């Protein structure tokens, strides 16, 4: 068997396969006009999963507490709007910025750890944020959450309609922007170094890489993106509840990402879409049915289909290409 190229050093491709997800996102806008708020929800989760892919899929940071960045972005955006600053885009940037700052602090606590200690510390941080938010009812609204968030029209022109047209396009635009950042990042020497750190941190040190700084950089970027996702959630649903800090959410986004495939950016899109659609359809019959399907899929991915759904698609494509 022979290979003719090194995939990570190949020039980035922009072809039909890369354009496909965006065409689908655009098509959905026209094809499912009554499902646009659900669609926005998927796009927001996809962004959240994308942020996790940078940290986990590429850099190998094991975290069961990524919701701390999402939740902080959400509450920040909600509080900023309720305080009177209703410009949406700067609201998102400020919320993302706050999450990025939080990422520095969290990074100091977790990035030098590995394996189970890292998982446990990130999990514990998530629980702490949840409990604190639960207790600070004067700030977060506690169980009732932040309600009645109102925003100015985007660019002063696009009003927020009840059916979610603006919200969908607004969210899609942010997703595209963040995706381009992630795409550039992962294709750069820095992105390659991140994978090196994930595969063999000791070796990376010995070839001169300052792994602490690299991991901190990607963690901050990831935290920023997760914060943006949370802020978008607050702005589009006009509501922020405690679940934005929940362990359930940290676990759910991990599952979404793995289902789609780690370390491939679009895995976040595929996994999120599948997860949320399955949830939506199965939950109509019984609120717990979807857990069965997702659970089985997850077990299947670990035991059989490494690389998630995109990995399976890869293998199928290679099989098809081998036919004369």
């Amino acid at each position, binding site marked *: 068997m022979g290979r003719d190229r090194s995939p990570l050093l190949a020039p980035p491709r922009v072809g039909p396969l890369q354009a496909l997800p965006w065409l689908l996102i655009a098509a959905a806008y026209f094809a499912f006009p009554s499902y646009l708020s659900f669609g926005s929800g998927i796009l927001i989760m996809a962004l959240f999963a994308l942020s996790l892919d940078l940290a986990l899929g590429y850099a190998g940071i094991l975290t069961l507490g990524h919701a701390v960045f999402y939740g902080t972005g959400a509450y920040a955006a909600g509080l900023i709007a309720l305080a009177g600053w209703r410009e949406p885009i700067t609201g998102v940037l400020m919320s993302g910025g706050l999450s990025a700052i939080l990422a520095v602090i969290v990074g100091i606590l977790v990035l030098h750890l590995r394996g*189970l200690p890292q998982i446990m510390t990130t999990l514990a941080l998530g629980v702490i944020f949840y409990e604190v938010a639960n207790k600070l009812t004067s700030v977060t609204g506690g169980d009732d959450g932040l309600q009645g968030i109102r925003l100015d029209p985007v660019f002063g022109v696009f009003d927020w309609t009840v059916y979610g047209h603006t919200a969908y396009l607004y969210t899609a635009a942010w997703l595209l922007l963040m995706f381009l950042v992630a795409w550039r990042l992962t294709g750069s020497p820095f992105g390659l170094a991140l994978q090196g750190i994930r595969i063999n941190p000791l070796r990376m040190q010995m070839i001169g890489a300052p792994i602490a700084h690299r991991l901190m950089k990607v963690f901050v970027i990831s935290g920023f993106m997760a914060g943006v996702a949370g802020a978008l959630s607050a702005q589009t649903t006009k509501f922020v509840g405690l679940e934005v800090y929940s362990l359930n959410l940290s676990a759910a986004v991990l599952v979404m990402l793995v289902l789609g495939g780690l370390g491939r950016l679009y895995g976040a899109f595929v996994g999120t879409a599948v997860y949320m659609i399955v949830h939506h359809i199965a939950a109509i019959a019984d609120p717990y*049915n979807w857990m069965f399907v997702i659970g089985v899929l997850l077990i299947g991915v670990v035991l059989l289909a490494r690389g998630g759904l995109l990995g399976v698609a890869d293998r199928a494509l290679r099989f098809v290409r081998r036919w004369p």
Partner: protein
Amino acid sequence: MSVAAFILVYGLSYGMVLFIISVGLAVTLGLMRVVNMAHGSFAAVGGYLAVAMMTQWSVPFPVAVIVATLGTALISVPIERFLYVPIYEAGELDQVLLTIGLVFVSIAGLNLAFGPNQAPTSLPRWLEASTDIGPIAVQNYRLMIIVVGALLIAALWLVFDRTDFGARLRAAVERRGMAAAVGINVNRLFTIAFALGSGLAGLGGALGYQVLPLEPTYPFKYLALFLVVVSIAGLGNIRATAAMALLVGLIDTALRYFFPAAGAFALFAILIVIQFWRYRAAFRIWY
């Protein structure tokens, strides 16, 4: 009864339930090095089995608990063989993911079998009643838990530190290949240890059905708690797990009484501090 007695009785019994459930996790996590997020599922299965037997077939409490424990241990065997064996040598991420998948499946299954509502937590009359110990009237249920827990601690110490089985298990974990080479059947040993751990979880779930009420989301709801107890104690350290669980029970009960505002997060903050301290050498050479 006085405040101190209240905290002592309720804190200790709560801690005992945590211990009985968590010690199984200490075994799989610490001794078998598997990150088992589905441990709470086995506790839930044990609890639900016991409650179902008592409510549907009027089985007396002690019998229900014993059958539930054995049943959970038995159920764990095929699960271990088919789902855990492939991930023993896998990385932490794979283990986390597979066991989370198992949690999801178990929650759906529990909901299917027992419905979405919380299971009944009423006690049989003889457990509801109280016994006088000196000046204090202690509810029999709580007393029973403390006594069973204490007996269990003694029994486990005996098994792990004093028997062949314990020695072999510790050997198999330290040097798996070497242990196999000297004739220890590692696979069977792991199956037995896993059944033991899961059975204990079932026992804890059954005994503690009023302390930790049963509902379909039980496996996920209390998971963080079990993980934290075991992590702070140091993996595989059964004595420390016992001490830690009891401490958690006491402190948590005391906090709820005196400072309801503190909430559960004190425990998790302690975990973060302890992990930071434990790995401070790694932190120092990190930057």
